């Protein structure tokens, strides 16, 4: 049990982000606050457009600005506010202490460079202490369960399956020994069987290296057995957050209840799936 008085690894407070265009301004993230202890796992669950990915990207200041603009809030990582940090100092965190794994491994990897080259590049930026980059890279590929790391090192992304590409992305994150791994829908593009493998791998490396994991997902099915805490986002706001077990057992917010109910379960075939009644939610959320 982490000490509740210790400084959290990450503390996001009152974060609001808007997107500006000529015609209008859209508030994508609206007053979001949450924190993470070192070595913990947090799942941010929400649908497309809920602001979950924008929140995740803002941690490493990965949002293009314009159109994105931070309206308010702080993102404090190991005591440092990342939002006000000058760009050169930020690079130490982005990709180094905070690593990302994205949804689409085939577009995250550069198609014209070998896996080995791309791994070496990450180490050249973030691991000046390493003398033997090749050795460390091969070790990382082994750690993510790649059976023939030598061959993988020489391969180009198109020669690998989607599951293998995602393992390479995780290895690339791992070689930088991050304190926080942000996994933005890491398994959405993959088969269910490969998804189970990748989630198992993330769990394993988390306990082995003691890094924290922030999982972004639209699927409540992935949360159980993976995350300690859950944040539920809807239309840019956090509607509910809490420890996973109690939140799943007794979700309080109607949106959380609806999002849990629409996950298909094995063994109740042909029953009608629950759907989300957005009109009802709107009437509940709008103060009258």
């Amino acid at each position, binding site marked *: 049990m982490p000490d509740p008085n210790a400084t959290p690894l990450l503390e996001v407070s009152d974060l609001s982000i808007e997107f500006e265009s000529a015609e209008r301004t859209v508030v994508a993230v609206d007053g979001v606050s949450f924190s993470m202890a070192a070595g913990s796992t947090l799942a941010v669950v929400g649908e497309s457009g809920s602001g979950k990915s924008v929140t995740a990207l803002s941690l490493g200041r990965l949002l293009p600005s314009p159109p994105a603009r931070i309206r308010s809030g702080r993102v404090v990582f190991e005591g440092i506010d990342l939002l006000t940090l000058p760009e050169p100092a930020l690079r130490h965190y982005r990709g180094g202490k905070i690593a990302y794994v994205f949804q689409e491994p085939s577009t995250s990897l550069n198609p014209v460079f070998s896996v080995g080259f791309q791994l070496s590049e990450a180490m050249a930026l973030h691991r000046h202490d390493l003398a033997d980059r090749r050795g460390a890279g091969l070790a990382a590929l082994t750690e993510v369960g790649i059976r023939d790391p030598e061959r993988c090192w020489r391969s180009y992304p198109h020669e690998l399956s989607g599951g293998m590409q995602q393992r390479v992305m995780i290895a690339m994150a791992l070689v930088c020994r991050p304190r926080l791994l942000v996994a933005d829908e890491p398994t959405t593009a993959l*088969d*269910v069987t490969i998804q189970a493998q990748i989630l198992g791998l993330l769990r394993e490396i988390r306990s082995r290296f003691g890094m924290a994991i922030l999982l972004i997902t639209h699927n409540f*099915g*992935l949360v*159980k057995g993976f995350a300690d805490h859950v944040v539920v986002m809807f239309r840019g706001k956090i509607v509910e957050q809490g420890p996973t077990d109690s939140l799943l057992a007794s979700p309080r917010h109607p949106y959380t209840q609806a*999002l849990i109910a629409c*996950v298909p379960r094995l063994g109740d*075939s042909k029953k*009608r799936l629950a*759907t989300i009644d957005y009109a009802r939610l709107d009437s509940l959320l709008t103060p009258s």
Partner: protein
Amino acid sequence: MLLEVANLVVRYPLPGGLFFRSRRFVEPVKGVSFRIRAGRTVGLVGESGSGKTTIGKAVVRLIAPHSGEIRYRQERIDGLSGARLHPYRKRVQMIFQDPHNSLNPRLSIARILGEPLEIHFPALRAQERRSRAADLLRRVGLPSDSLDRFPHEFSGGQRQRIGIARALAVEPELIVCDEPVSALDVSIQAQIVNLLQDLQQELGLAYLFISHDLAVVEHMSDEVLVLNEGRIVEAAPPEELYRNPKNEYTRKLLAAVPSL
């Protein structure tokens, strides 16, 4: 019986053989047999590379089988080509996984829905096609004023509804659904699954429902076929498959489904 597939084999030649035809080939489907009754759903589940999409494409005859028989209402359709496939295409339609890539971005929704009507109901006048297209949109739960809009103006779930409306346009009896909900949020996935079930009730459609997700397939299907490396390793009604999986590969697929 609506559709009968017997010993279906599909082969693709591998590149090579500069002067002679290549002798090397891959065989994604290695002798598969199944049947679909009118108004029922057969689910086809397997991982990437198991051959499930290839089977779907062979059934709608986007590709020709290497050997085996496909019968539609007793009639052999595996050897047909060109214009002789035309009547079959009116009976059997397909919806695809990626609603972003399966609609032409330069066509309005009216054109997207109007084209199959033009081909299969040539007697219809332009105004009649338009009103039919509006009916189709209503049927899949989209406002009929969507007709003059373009695919990019719709969300992923709405685009999948347009794909379903396009398949319905020719009044088919069988729809091959190839991973129709895999690219969608779970919340939207539930809406589309329910829509497909409603349409089946109303119109008596049969489905060949293809997915890698056993939980979704189980939800949709009267019978589930488990496919591994081009062969059916288990076929059973969904409750039985879930309660008493006989094949080891089926158990592996069941274990991979996240549980709440």
